[in-house]
């Protein structure tokens, strides 16, 4: 009985995992190819965000070196 339950659970898990996958055809990638799908599609906005974050944190980190303060310049 316990063995059956394990198999059933495995089958259900596999089914759930496979149903989450879909092969996207090359001509269906219009939305995926949109620049907005990139993490840093707006380079200027990214730069400003990193500047403010670095300044507020007042530390040197992965964004490079920055001084503390208001982040105005």
């Amino acid at each position: 009985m316990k063995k059956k339950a394990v198999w059933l659970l495995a089958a259900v898990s596999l089914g759930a995992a496979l149903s989450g996958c879909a092969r996207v055809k090359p001509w269906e990638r219009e939305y995926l190819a949109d620049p907005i799908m990139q993490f840093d599609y707006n380079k200027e906005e990214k730069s400003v965000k990193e500047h403010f974050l670095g300044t507020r944190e007042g530390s040197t980190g992965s964004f490079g070196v920055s001084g503390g303060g208001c982040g105005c310049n």
Partner: protein
Amino acid sequence: MNQSAPPFTLMDINGRAVSLSSFKGKVVFIDFWASWCPPCKVEFPELIRLMERYNGEDVALLAVNVDQKRSHAVDFLKKFSVIPASFHLLLDGESQVIKIYNASAMPTSFILDKNGVVRHIHFGYRETDRKKWIEEIDTLLKQ
């Protein structure tokens, strides 16, 4: 490959119906492209140059656009002031024809002989493709 190309009829960018069957007796270059596809953007001017080379010869190019919105294709085409007469811009916004041809890359090109048989297929675009296209079209024109 080496089979008759599936027949189709699509609207061109000016709203006229264009059928593949009407190009029988010509070498036909079918190119599936989209304005959102970077290699297609690089390839497009080369296709225009290719058709300029074969101006007046029995060669036709069917550039099948698969953008979902016609306006995206129209905006992209504004960059090109002169498009040769043998260069036909067709719209397949619902991806019906590209599905039948099962293009496995963007862009994908099919070169058909004068009898409508697929003789060459190119997946994607590389700078060296232009030379291959010319060799293949020249060979098919002589047959």
